[in-house]
């Protein structure tokens, strides 16, 4: 049973991690909790479904198209909603993020209706149902394996982008000090837009995998996932990308174990309680760098 719970927790955790990096990267560069990120994740699932059914695209194409669309959506969100508020009080951007979140959620409800929709089963390859690994009672399907592989691969890729490319370096520079970065000739707005695109693309992928795995999608799905992923980002140390990945996995496993062994009604409480404890005991998060109060 413990092994099974760990497997379940890992699946959940990797998905949280994929969403969490979106929060954390945006926070890193513009110190904004982008509450509309959960909605981008939801749009990822719905757009993929739309490409599959309306345009009859093959699965891989639909997934990639959906990721691209969501990346563009992320950029659009930044350009239209957040960029004009770059020099405004910080809370103005936060309220805008909340407003966009409400807007996008209701937009999805108008486009696709409010009833939960199943994923397009026919589009999934048959081997997804086959057991990939089994030890004892524990079975891992190829679908779960795909989630693991895709999530891990995407995160490795992300790390490479952040550490090895010029744009990645620029992102890190921006996170340290925006003014200095722009003095060094970094096009701040372009790097921020790129950050939004990256995070949103990954969020879309998470949305697609969730809807595939659980065979359901609905317009309000972004809220729960968003809040959990946000907690994961905080757990790892908000602003830190490896932290968000780690936080996601820790949260996923803690939540599963909490629900399995402690008390299922308090399942979500486990996430928040851990988050609060970590913040009080180690405010910079598990992997974050220490922050000192700016004078």
């Amino acid at each position, binding site marked *: *049973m413990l092994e*099974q*719970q760990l497997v*379940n*927790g890992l699946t*959940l955790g990797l998905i949280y991690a994929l969403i969490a990096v979106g929060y954390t990267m945006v926070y890193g560069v513009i110190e904004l909790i982008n509450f509309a990120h959960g909605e981008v994740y939801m749009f990822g699932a719905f757009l993929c479904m739309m490409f599959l059914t309306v345009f009859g695209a093959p699965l891989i194409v639909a997934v990639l198209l959906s990721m691209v669309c969501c990346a563009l959506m992320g950029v659009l969100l930044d350009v239209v909603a957040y960029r004009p508020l770059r020099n405004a009080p910080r809370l103005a951007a936060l309220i805008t993020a909340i407003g966009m979140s409400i807007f996008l959620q*209701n937009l999805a*409800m108008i486009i696709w*209706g*409010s*009833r*939960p929709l*199943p994923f397009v*089963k026919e589009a999934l390859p048959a081997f997804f149902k086959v057991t990939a690994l089994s030890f004892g*009672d524990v*079975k891992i*399907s190829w679908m779960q394996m795909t989630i693991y592989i895709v999530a891990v691969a995407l995160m490795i890729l992300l790390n490479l982008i952040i550490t090895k490319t010029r744009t990645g370096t620029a992102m890190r520079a921006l996170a340290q000090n925006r003014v200095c970065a722009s003095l060094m000739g970094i096009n701040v707005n372009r790097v921020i837009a790129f950050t939004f695109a990256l995070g949103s693309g990954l969020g879309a992928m998470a949305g697609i995998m*969730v809807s595939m795995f*659980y*065979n*359901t999608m*609905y317009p*309000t*799905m972004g*809220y*729960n996932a968003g809040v959990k992923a946000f907690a994961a980002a905080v757990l790892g140390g908000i602003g830190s990308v490896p932290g968000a990945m780690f936080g996601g996995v820790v949260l996923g496993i803690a*939540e*599963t*174990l*909490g*629900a*399995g*062994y402690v008390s*299922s*009604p308090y*399942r*979500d409480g486990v996430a928040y309680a851990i988050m609060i404890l970590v913040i009080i005991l180690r405010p910079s998060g598990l992997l974050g760098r220490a922050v000192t109060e700016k004078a």
Partner: protein
Amino acid sequence: MPGKGLKFLGSVCLMGLLMAAVPALAEDVIKIAVPSPYTGSAAGFGENVKAGVTLKVEEINAAGGIDGKKVEAVYLDEQCEPREAATVSTKIANDKAIVGIVGHLCSSAHLAALPTYVREGIAAISPTATSVTITDKNKDAKGNVWSFRNVYRDDFQGKFLAQYVDKAMGLKKIAVFYENNDYGIGLKDAFVKEAKALGLTIVGEEAYMKGAQDFNPQLTKMKGGAPEALFIAGYYPEGALIVDQAKKIGLDVPKFGADGFDNADYIKLAGDAADGLYLTAPFLAETAGPDAKKFIETFKARFGRDVDWMSANAYDATAMLADAIAKVGADRAKIRDYLAGINTADKGYKGITGVNYFDKNGDCLKPAYVKMVKGNAFVPAPKQMD
């Protein structure tokens, strides 16, 4: 002078609010209010109620309306939120053209709106609110009931299902999964109480929140208790996922649910795992009369999906209200008296969901049938309770 634009905005808001309060002048229509969630996470259910009401209202108007007056349904969004429901309730009470209510959808919203209906004197028929608590809170000081419902109470269904599991199916070890809301808890409590009285073993009670997608931890835990059946007190969007995930981890036992599962989308969402679910329903399409058959067909042609119990109940509730208006006129108090008078099966309204009538608390007394999912379709269960 920043205050200037602001005062303008403030006055616009105030004016708008006052305008919102002024009832429409057209008096040649009879209005009924249908407060339900049309946005937010429960909007999918609100859509079902709206569909049922729409069909009935169109039917009435096509037949010339009531006393030559057209019926107009006013759809008011309350998001299934008690606070919004309380606001909406005053808006309904205030519009004197509205003579009766079909709603609310959620029990908690209904409970929050009830004080206004009782105080202002307007009768409501809820097609879907199942909470037991409504029975205690729907009367005014004189003991007059202002809120009726043509849906079973949670305790009735929970008890019924426990008896079905025991007597008709002969299953003894049950695991219970419930949604952590008024519906789920009410249903679960009644089921567990009756199951214990019948000597069944409950091998685990696990909760989940609305909108949850991952039920593996709880299911894995339940599997340890080796249950012979799974009782799911909740709605189909989550229920379908539970059934699916239970099958995936190898917990392939008969599943039981209440009316919350009675929706064709369940089969779409649960996929191959859908089979083997038993659920209570107020009527069986196969054995229903010609009216019900016609309704089922019209519904499918109009909305492109199979009918669900919420639409059917809403359709009947609207019909009862229209009936009352036709009999006693557009008078709120008289409509209430008329509805309260429908207290035996003989006086009952014969709708598509069977005979609808109310007991002295405004609760409905209807027989329950058991449906099951077999070959990816809802069919009557082979065994029915008498």
